[in-house]
């Protein structure tokens, strides 16, 4: 029998074990399974040795083109992540543990989660945070369901411009919960039918909003205000909690590591204190030892530790009456996010956010000076801006592709008048200045030829 590297038992081991069981073969252990369907033909390729596997996947990885200058953002941003982040989260004590059901031997995961909750509260200006959800969009959908539960209203409002995939995900969850989803153009369109209004900060087309306008309108209608915030932008922008937000979600993936084709992600989920017991997901709380080990210093005070708290909200206890079916989340990504934010610290978060802002504004300023190009005015913005070129967005993307550059996102099919004929470019703090130079040069050549 072929030996597989992840299976230690040998034929000799199996013989000893089977003898103890009084069973003739391993296959005999499966005799309860219906014979007519047992051991089906399964068409998957034969086993590969490690060296062959690596070679194959290196070939596949090389079929992706990732070294060209790219100006796509729209929810996935190239961010500066310090080297210690991947180093620390690749420690196998973090990476290969389970959900911390046994706090005595899971303090690493638990305390890191408490750090994460603290960091998210500080960034968002909220009172409480869970340990993280799947991604920004699903966290936003869960926030909408929380609003539905506490207001007992059966509709939610999403303020445009908002990421179309967020709308899609909220609609999917709303299909489950039989909730109506309205997209609205103005925060003042929120009515007494709506459980909440969801606001993206900065909005989908890049503009920085005054969250207070939205929260004021929501509260006037008796609805909650949910803000989907970019966490790096929160190094610079007013905390949503200080502007009246009731719940804040956001995407943590890009401060945790590379964009990785969009996942695994990390959904931030923070709330004002009154919603604590309505929150979905895991929550870690501080606790004291009740049984100090004999080895601890005699007479010493009980030590401080961390445990999964408020579990009576969760599916494994409350079952069909749980606040959510949420179980496994994004623990390791949350730890990576925490380490990045704490390594940047208060100065680094501000400087990184400002660097992002300045690099993007510099790129926009240079593009605006090119003949035939215009940057659309939409108020203060952070890292994404709309460009109108002397040709339609599709033609612009092709012309840039011919020069080895991936354009921004074509947003010309959107309803907003500013998006007409526009491409949305994204420049972040982690983008190479040489790539921006190449873009400006390429646009200048394209403009001259048109």
């Amino acid at each position, binding site marked *: 029998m072929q030996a597989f590297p992840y299976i230690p038992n040998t034929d000799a081991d199996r013989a000893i074990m089977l003898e103890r069981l009084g069973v003739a073969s391993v296959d005999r252990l499966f005799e309860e399974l219906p014979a007519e369907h047992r051991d089906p033909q399964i068409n998957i390729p034969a086993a590969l040795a490690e060296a062959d596997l690596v070679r194959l996947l290196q070939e596949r990885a090389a079929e*992706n083109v990732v070294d060209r200058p790219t100006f796509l953002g729209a929810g996935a941003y190239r961010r500066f992540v310090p080297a210690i982040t991947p180093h620390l989260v690749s420690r196998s004590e973090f*990476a290969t*543990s389970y959900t911390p059901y046994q706090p005595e031997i899971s303090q690493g995961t638990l305390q890191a989660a408490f750090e994460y909750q603290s960091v998210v509260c500080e960034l968002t200006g909220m009172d409480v945070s869970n340990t993280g959800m799947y*991604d920004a969009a699903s966290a936003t959908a869960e926030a909408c369901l929380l609003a539905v539960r506490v207001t007992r209203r059966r509709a939610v409002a999403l303020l445009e411009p908002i990421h179309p995939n967020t709308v899609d995900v909220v609609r999917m969850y709303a299909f489950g919960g039989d909730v109506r989803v309205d997209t609205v153009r103005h925060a003042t369109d929120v009515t007494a039918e709506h459980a909440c209004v969801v606001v993206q900060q900065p909005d989908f087309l890049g503009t920085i909003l005054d969250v207070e306008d939205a929260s004021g309108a929501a509260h006037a209608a008796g609805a909650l205000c949910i803000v989907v915030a970019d966490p790096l932008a929160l190094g610079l922008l007013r905390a949503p909690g200080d502007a009246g937000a009731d719940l804040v979600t956001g995407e943590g993936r890009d401060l945790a590591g590379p964009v990785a084709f969009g996942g695994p992600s990390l959904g931030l989920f923070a709330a004002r204190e009154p919603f604590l017991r309505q929150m979905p997901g895991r929550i870690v709380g501080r606790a004291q030892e009740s049984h100090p080990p004999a080895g601890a210093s005699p007479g010493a005070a009980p030590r*401080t530790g961390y445990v999964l*708290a408020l579990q009576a909200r969760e599916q494994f206890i409350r079952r069909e009456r749980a606040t959510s079916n949420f179980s496994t989340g994004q623990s390791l*990504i949350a730890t990576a996010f925490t380490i990045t934010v704490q390594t940047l610290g208060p100065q*680094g978060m501000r400087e990184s956010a400002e660097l992002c802002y300045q690099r993007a504004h510099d790129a926009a300023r240079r593009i605006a000076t090119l003949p035939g190009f215009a940057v659309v005015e939409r108020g*203060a913005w952070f890292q994404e801006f709309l460009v109108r070129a002397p040709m339609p967005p599709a033609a612009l993307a092709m012309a840039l592709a011919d020069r080895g550059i991936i354009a921004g996102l074509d947003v010309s099919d959107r309803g907003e008048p500013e998006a007409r004929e526009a491409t949305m470019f994204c420049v972040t703090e982690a983008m190479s200045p040489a790539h921006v130079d190449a873009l400006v040069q390429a646009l200048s050549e394209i403009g001259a030829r048109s």
Partner: protein
Amino acid sequence: MIEDVGARLSFDRGAPGRRGVGVPRWDGEPAALPDAHLLRESVRLPEMSQNEIVRYYGALSRRNYSVDSGTYPLGSCTMKYNPKVDDLIASLPGFAEAHPLAPAEDVQGVLRVLFELQSHLGEITGLPAVALSPAAGAHGELAGMLIVKRALERRGELAQRRRVLVPDSAHGTNPATAAMAGFTVQELPSGPDGGVDLATLEAALGDDVAAFMVTLPNTLGLWERNIQRVVERVHAAGAFVYGDGANLNAIVGRMRFGDLGFDVVHLNPHKTFGTPHGGGGPGAGPVCARAELAPYLPAPVVVQEDGRYALVRPADTIGRMQQFHGSIGVLLRAYAYIRTLGCEGLRETSGNAVLNANYLRALMRDHYDLPYDRPVMHEVVFAGTRQRRRHNVRTYDIAKRLIDYGLHPPTVYFPLIVEEALMIEPTEAESRESIEMLAGAFIAIAEESERDPELLHDAPQTSPIGRMDEAEASRHPVIRWRPREA
């Protein structure tokens, strides 16, 4: 004095002015910042040097038990070895740096891997319509139940079929998912053999039932002997059979849900395909369905046409599960695991997982009660009832004592239908010697419970911290750092 690590968070460490990393200066022409009312002063965060951060998180990591530290027999959680080469593959820059909105021609490599993974999972489950985008098992369940809901809607039966049947031995996510999908839940008591009781099922079925959710093998680690009749009856009543594929690791390569007539299942790659659990994620939750249900799959799925791969939105999709395409890093690892083992290797994983569980059952059976005394699949559920009755020792105490033997405790008090449950899953990744060591520890603890029950009540003694007052942590929750009162 030894530091009380838990009492000092990062926020209480470091000093004003320290920093962990430098940020490039902007030395170009500065643009004016937005109006002051849109900005903040600063974010309150720790100020630590890089060395302090590394030592702090290093200290935290050493306060964790992990699969790489030793046997981790959490039943139903399937903590098996996580191949390191799979981590390497997921971190290849060609995968890690790909933007989710990049033009399809720039991401053919990753799309091809995802397409092949869809096809392999379709083969493994016998359910060919596969979507990879759910972020975790429970998320995959939600996708699966919404596929059922959409199918009922299209049949014009949604208004009528609002009830979902779930065995009382099910994972808590099953009833919670059915409720999130908008159904009412009816729990069915298990039969005397621990399986679905046909008479109970038949009595509960009716033209208002949307689906029956079943875990196979079930959460007692037992094969459902009536599974074919169960599927038949549910289908005869016009309802769907939803499979919780959490325990696929027991039967992978040997039996396919599709061949048994299941309509939809979700899978947990960390359980069957060796992806790391990360202390609570990230996971992934692929959903696999019969071909007729393909139009309802969550978006996106990968298709191939003329040798080119592309992401598409199924015709009548339930929608997106998350912003982008799924937990790609986890899915790449699952793909690598499947390619390393092939069909024969996967069959060996289920064979050895089941052999190990039965061997453990044989070694321990004289020392603990076995509420369902049948040969098991991938895990075995004992009960600490004897120890409770005779020595006032609870399963909780037995679990804590196991920590002093350098082992992770099993799952306890689940499934809910077993009193003082000890649910032990060794997995195929443990050797015969480590199964014997695990059984030896359990047997020694059973003896200690007779001789010196206080030893168990005071356990653990060797862990970084002792037993915690968990009730108080929920009564008066402190869930974030606050500055100390001056």
